């Protein structure tokens, strides 16, 4: 990794938003490939942030600070990525399921996915199964990511999966689930393709689902 990419990488891990945007601009001015800035500098940094979180070294607000720095850099980089026809890691429709108003965890997952170059369509909280179906249909998403924080609302994940089946979309989209009361076993029972216990592992699981 060259010096400028290393500077971008470090600024994101440290959550230094202004440094990130300055260094991304500097890298572009130097003629660095947008894809290299994205993948070697930014996505690699967010992967490291996720790893630090999984290890218990980083805390939730630090992940957000890093994701904010990443997003600032990404906003600057986006026109160049479009011009260079650099593809996203995949398209994710995300939301907290019907009846559940919690959104902090889902928001964190969305930010981490964006930090890993996924295109995220955030449907918000209390999302009706039909709204998930409509969004998948309209966006041709690769993944539906659902969150639930309550035992009383997590059955709506299965309802949503059934709605995707009924709409003939289930084979076209992977389903990723997460949230405090969920387990891998529950994810298996409802027919989800992936389960993640936290935002960092949601990214890793999303990547593996895309690769599968």
């Amino acid at each position, binding site marked *: 990794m060259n010096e400028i990419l290393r500077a971008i990488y470090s600024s994101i891990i440290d*959550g230094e938003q202004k440094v990130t945007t300055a260094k991304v601009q500097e890298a572009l001015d130097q003629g660095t490939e947008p894809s290299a800035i994205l993948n070697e500098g930014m996505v690699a940094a967010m992967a490291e942030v996720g790893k630090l979180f999984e290890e*218990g070294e980083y*805390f*939730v*607000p*630090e992940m*957000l*600070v890093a*994701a*904010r720095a990443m997003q600032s850099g990404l906003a600057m980089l986006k026109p160049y990525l479009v011009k260079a026809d650099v593809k996203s890691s995949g398209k994710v429709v995300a939301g907290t399921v019907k*009846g*559940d*108003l*919690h959104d*902090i965890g889902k*928001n964190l997952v969305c*930010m981490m996915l964006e930090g890993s170059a996924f295109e995220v369509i955030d449907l918000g909280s209390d999302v009706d199964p039909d709204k998930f179906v409509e969004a998948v249909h309209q966006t041709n998403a690769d993944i539906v990511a659902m969150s639930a924080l*309550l*035992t*009383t*609302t997590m059955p709506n994940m299965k309802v949503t999966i059934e709605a995707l089946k009924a709409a003939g979309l289930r084979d076209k989209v992977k389903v990723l689930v997460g949230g*405090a*009361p969920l387990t891998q076993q529950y994810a298996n029972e409802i027919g989800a393709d992936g389960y993640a*216990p936290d935002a960092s592992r949601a990214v890793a699981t999303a990547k593996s689902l895309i690769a599968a």
Partner: protein
Amino acid sequence: MFAAAISLDITPEMVLRGQGANPAIITNRKPVLLENAERAIQEGMALLSPKIIERTIEVIKISHDRIYLENNLLIENRFITRELSSAGRISFIICTIGSAIEEKVSALYRSDPVLSLAFDGFGTAAIEALAAFACETVRIRAKEEDLCISIPYSPGMIEWPLEKGQNQIFSILQPDPLVVRLTPSFQMIPKKSMSMIIGIGTGFNHNDRQTCDFCAARQTCRYRLNRD
């Protein structure tokens, strides 16, 4: 309902813990997060509308899975019955800080998610402080009669299903829906609200149990790790 004279003392450390962070570590590593916590306190205090709805009810009889209360009220749950088997009275409590903080959190999320999380952490710290204030009020009243109190138990704990517990507490307290209400999935609105019951009697020993011991997320909860 006692709403008057509730003074909540919220520190930046509490706000950082409310975000799932260890204050001792993060304060040095990311000073901006401490600044955000201080700002959330400064701006957030005026947005609090703390209210505690409480009612203490005499226990008439206890079976293996039911607590019969005065006025033909009933708690039906084996776990709660076991935990409160030495209660002579039970205090039912709902606390809320109102909805202004969560509105602030939502409004900030798109423009500044980091500050938004700080306000959410402030809300978490505030509702926890309010619940602690409510528990302490019940404890002081009990102590005047040489009684002690149990730890608080909340619906959603491992052996007390959310839907059953919330229905029991809300049917007994019947709070004004403009203050706090339940959604069809038994979530409280405002979100920064807590419901709980506390046993009052003799023989409760706080040394052998903590509320977190009965939480479904006790193995993975970072909030708990950073509080311990």
